């Protein structure tokens, strides 16, 4: 019934709610704090002419209620794997700010989000692997590895990152990925460091798995709790703990195989 004004209004409200939720979902998946996520969704909803009544962001899903006059609608959307992507995060924030100034339709906002998701640049995979290897080796020097272990830690980090990208593309569980990376990276660094006669074998093995250190979720967990979102903060803290437990399992296995104590 196209002449039913309430149903039409609800359909329009639904489209706006889903656009605001999509903005929120992408921001969470890019590693934004909950306060930023809610700001982004609110800017989109207001820019499209409705008032957000309530927003809830959990670790795996989020909900929004929007209102226009007497009509309200509540919708929910699941959230994909949490990661960190600064360039997409800031492109989305810029879009939210643009939408908030008015003058864009829901379809235009959705099309712009599609375009940003497809065209926002990413560093080439080989560069990411090399950069992560170098970061692990630098981390190792900060921890006190000797120069002989620098190369093995670098190669362990490069291999670990390459494995991470390969397994993520295959959709393997992220905690299992953490254990596999830790085993390969620590094993490579440990075996290499032993081969070249390093005296800092244990530190080298630890340094090689530091690509797994969930620094962004760890600090976001605390910030979310400070900002008044303890459930998301707690969920993030638990995910940090889980990553480190699985990573330690991988290191333990590598140490056992190499006979390192």
């Amino acid at each position, binding site marked *: 019934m196209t002449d039913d004004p309430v149903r039409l209004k609800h359909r329009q409200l639904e489209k706006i709610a889903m656009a605001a939720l999509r903005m929120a979902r992408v921001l969470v998946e890019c*590693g934004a704090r909950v306060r*930023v996520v809610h*700001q*982004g969704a609110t*800017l989109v909803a207001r820019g499209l002419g409705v008032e957000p009544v309530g927003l809830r962001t959990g670790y795996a899903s989020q909900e929004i209620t929007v209102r226009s006059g007497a009509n309200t609608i509540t919708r929910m959307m699941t959230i994909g794997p949490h990661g*960190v*992507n*600064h*360039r*997409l*995060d*800031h492109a989305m*924030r810029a879009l*939210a*700010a643009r939408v908030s100034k008015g003058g864009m339709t829901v379809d235009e906002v959705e099309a712009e989000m599609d375009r940003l998701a497809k065209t926002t640049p*990413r*560093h080439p995979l080989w*560069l*990411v692997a090399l*950069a*992560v*290897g*170098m*970061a*692990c080796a*630098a*981390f190792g*020097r*900060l*921890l006190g590895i000797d120069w002989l272990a620098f190369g093995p830690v670098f190669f362990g980090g490069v291999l670990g*990152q390459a494995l991470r990208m390969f397994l993520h593309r295959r959709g393997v569980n992220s905690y299992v990925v953490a254990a596999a990376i830790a085993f390969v990276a620590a094993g490579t660094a440990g075996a290499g460091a032993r081969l070249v006669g390093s005296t800092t074998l244990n*530190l080298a093995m*630890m*340094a090689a*798995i*530091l*690509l*797994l*250190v969930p*620094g*962004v979720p*760890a*600090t976001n*967990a*605390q*910030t979310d709790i*400070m900002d008044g979102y303890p459930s998301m903060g707690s969920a993030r803290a638990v995910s940090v703990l889980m990553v*480190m*437990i699985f*990573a*330690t399992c991988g*290191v*333990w296995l590598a*140490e056992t195989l190499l006979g390192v104590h």
Partner: protein
Amino acid sequence: MPPLTFDELHLLHQAFFGAIAAAGFGVLFNVGLRSLAWCAAAGALALGVRTLGQDLQWSLEAASFVAALAASICANVLRRPLGPRGSAVALTGCIPMVPGAFFGQAILGALAVTTPHPENAAVILTAIEYLLRVLFTLAAIGAGLAIPAHLLKHRDF
């Protein structure tokens, strides 16, 4: 100009590798190429301040807190060139201070505690010490990053 002392060399060493580690993590986090230099600078600043603090006999937790505070204040002061990227730059600069190695050693230590015959009480104490250091250092970094951002509220999004 007087020759560099050992401690100055150590400070430079820590700041340099802090910058490399922060820039490396910046690439992993898909930070833009122009912002990578800022991430490296934040990493050098954070590790430099932390090393200075530890040279002054501060605990790791206190030194990490002041280092994160310094990185966050600088990111807020440099709001004009950095824009809303400031908080991300400060955070990336502090990543090399996250005590991931302690975390691993704490869990490995806890595994040693649960063996049928743990060697001695020192194993338990070491595991607990590492775990507490991880918790307090992470909390110190998070608080150091968050406090200036909350005090100097900016309207840009």
